[in-house]
């Protein structure tokens, strides 16, 4: 008799979701699905609003990565104004975006995922949290908290506050950077670098203990998508889109962000509020691709900052082509944190960074605008249409977690097939199915533009829909 296991809600991720695992008559996993169970409708509620409100409106999609939305939205608005923003403004926005990636990666790695890595996948769930990590490896926990705080502080120094700042505006930013704030940020750069490198060294020591997980955590060939600078370096703010395949070969390159629609289409799933974008010419679902830290490090030619470059070279030695196991999202996230700190330092050193010319002003000159940037979880796309008075007529947001939708589903299936057997669910198995989702660091409130809590549960169902077993996590 076949059964379904439901994990609802999924814990230690951002947003609300559940997982169902279908077992066949012999108790083997027949299929597994990741469902996102919330709906918010931001694209609808922004209709009719003046487009100048869009950065702040869409920032409300998420309290963890408001900055990412500010950046992509402001870039879409720049396109509506059809202006080239002052270089200083672009660089200040870059610093803000890098600080956001730094703090979000710290949150994902240390606060959400390190309990699995420090205490083990099968550890007591009551201990398997940041407090457990703090008890076992206080230095690691401290590094995580410090790095996240540093990222948030940079955001506050630049933009006035940590969450939902209104500083990024169409045409640039609303206020220049001051010398004292620059110096405060700069002063902590060496310590930040030390802390990330220490964590990287630790990670490289321990990831060997997770062989089975590395082999099964969404480890399959797929395409990878991300922005790349014109000289092939890691790029979080500007640049053009690149797709590479599982061997690391470039499939499509130098795609102007505004032409993303020629390469990506979105499929609607019957059982999830999360849409599933796919690479158009390969169709659905074969056009599966991944975005985010792993994808970015798989598709660049070089990083562009010295210390991260060294780490990346080592990372690339892991596999011959692209790194295919989503477990290594963790590794990639740490390398990117190093890159973020180095790049922030470099940008702050730029001679004109304190320039007071930080905003271009214009009336709307284009009725359609697209803004693409790299968010912590991957490529973020905002696409707007306005009327001639500057009121929003239509919006489409494609969120990093959405890009990863097909891959997360496939990953859940892969992990379940390897670790789940029989009728009885054990805790370690439940945790591994969640952990594969955690490697992607999905932000479900962003991707469905949804709200809610984040926990998770698993159900085991018979073919006629009867619940055979159930495990629920603290809601």
């Amino acid at each position: 008799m076949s059964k379904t296991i439901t994990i609802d809600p999924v814990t230690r991720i951002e947003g609300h979701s559940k997982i169902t695992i279908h077992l066949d008559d012999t108790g083997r996993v027949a299929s597994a699905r990741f469902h996102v169970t919330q709906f918010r409708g931001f694209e609808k509620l922004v209709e009719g609003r003046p487009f100048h409100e869009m950065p702040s409106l869409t920032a409300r999609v998420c309290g963890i990565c408001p900055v990412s939305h500010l950046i992509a939205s402001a870039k879409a608005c720049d396109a509506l104004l059809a202006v080239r923003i002052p270089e200083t403004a672009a660089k200040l926005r870059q610093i803000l975006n890098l600080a956001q990636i730094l703090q979000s990666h710290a949150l994902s790695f240390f606060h959400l995922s390190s309990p699995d890595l420090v205490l083990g996948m099968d550890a007591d769930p009551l201990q398997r949290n940041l407090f457990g990590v703090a008890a076992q490896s206080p230095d690691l926990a401290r590094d995580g908290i410090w790095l996240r705080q540093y990222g948030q502080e940079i955001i506050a120094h630049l933009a006035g506050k940590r969450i939902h700042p209104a500083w990024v505006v169409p045409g640039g930013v609303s206020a220049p950077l001051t010398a004292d704030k620059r110096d405060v940020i700069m002063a902590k750069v060496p310590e930040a670098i030390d802390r990330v490198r220490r964590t990287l060294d630790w990670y490289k020591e321990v990831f060997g203990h997770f062989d089975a997980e590395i082999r099964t955590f969404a480890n399959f060939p797929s395409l990878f998508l991300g922005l790349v600078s014109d000289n092939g370096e890691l790029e979080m703010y500007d640049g053009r889109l690149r797709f590479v395949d599982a061997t690391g070969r470039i499939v499509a390159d130098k795609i102007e962000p505004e032409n993303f629609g020629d390469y990506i289409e979105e499929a609607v799933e019957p059982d999830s509020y999360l849409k599933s974008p796919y690479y158009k010419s390969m169709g659905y679902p074969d056009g599966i691709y991944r975005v985010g830290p792993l994808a970015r490090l798989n598709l660049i030619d070089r990083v562009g900052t010295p210390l991260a470059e060294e780490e990346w070279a080592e990372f690339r030695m892991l596999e011959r082509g692209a790194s295919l196991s989503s477990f290594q999202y963790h590794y990639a996230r740490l390398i990117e944190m190093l890159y973020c700190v180095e790049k922030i330092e470099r940008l702050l050193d730029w001679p004109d960074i304190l320039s007071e010319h930080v905003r271009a002003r214009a009336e709307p000159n284009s009725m359609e605008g697209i803004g693409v940037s790299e968010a912590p979880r991957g490529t973020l796309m905002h696409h707007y249409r306005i009327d001639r008075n500057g009121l929003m007529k239509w919006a489409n947001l494609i969120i990093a977690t959405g890009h990863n939708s097909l891959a997360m589903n496939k990953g859940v299936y892969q992990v379940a097939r390897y670790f789940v057997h029989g009728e009885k669910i054990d805790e370690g198995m439940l945790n591994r199915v969640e952990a594969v989702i955690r490697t992607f660091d999905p932000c479900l409130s962003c991707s469905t533009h949804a709200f809610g809590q984040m926990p998770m549960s698993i159900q085991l169902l018979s073919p006629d829909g009867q619940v055979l077993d159930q495990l629920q996590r603290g809601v």
Partner: protein
Amino acid sequence: MKRPFKTRIKTLKIDGIDVGAREDETILELAQENDIFIPTLCHLEGVHDVGSCRLCLVEVRGTNKLLPACMTYAEEGMEVITNSERLQAYRRQVLDLLFSERNHVCSVCVSNGHCELQWLAGKLGISHVGVPYLYPQLEVDASHRYYSYDPNRCILCTRCVRVCDEIEGAHTWDVMGRGVECLVISDLNQPWGTAESCTRCGKCVQVCPTGALFNKGRAVAEMTKRRDFLPYLQTMREGRK
């Protein structure tokens, strides 16, 4: 406002303090002179008062009715109370109703941090709204070259109507409908950009207490307003007569 030619002095009490007032002076003016805070929204120095927002209601001994301080003149022997639990409750209720009637979302408003409604809510201790929101669907009018009108943030104080009529002399703005259906409209309820009477002076934008009227192209929290021009304009005009 035309004042009687001869003024007489009245003596009265506000919050137990003995004060002297001209007979053409309102309780609100008198209170402000004596540094006593009475909340207001529709009142605007430089144009006629209409007493519509009801925030400046005060208690006067001898009458059970609450009286708007902006429309009540000083009288001999009056005893006025400007702040009591009863008044506070009514004032909070007025703000509750204002918030619930339209779509006031401070966090994404151009006037966030510079809004009189928001400031007053903080001052009067509004932490949440006690009545259900109406969520009306009102369209933003962005047809004007320089300014936008978002009725979602309008509190019907009619400052724009009065300043346009009394100071600019254009009378582009007026009020249509009744009760919660009331709406500030331009000319014959047409898009602002097509209102022929509008001189584009922007006084209405500057006096609007919320983000209902704002300069085009302002992002969230960027709309600051300056109101000091109004008393100045009026003084200059009176001086010329």
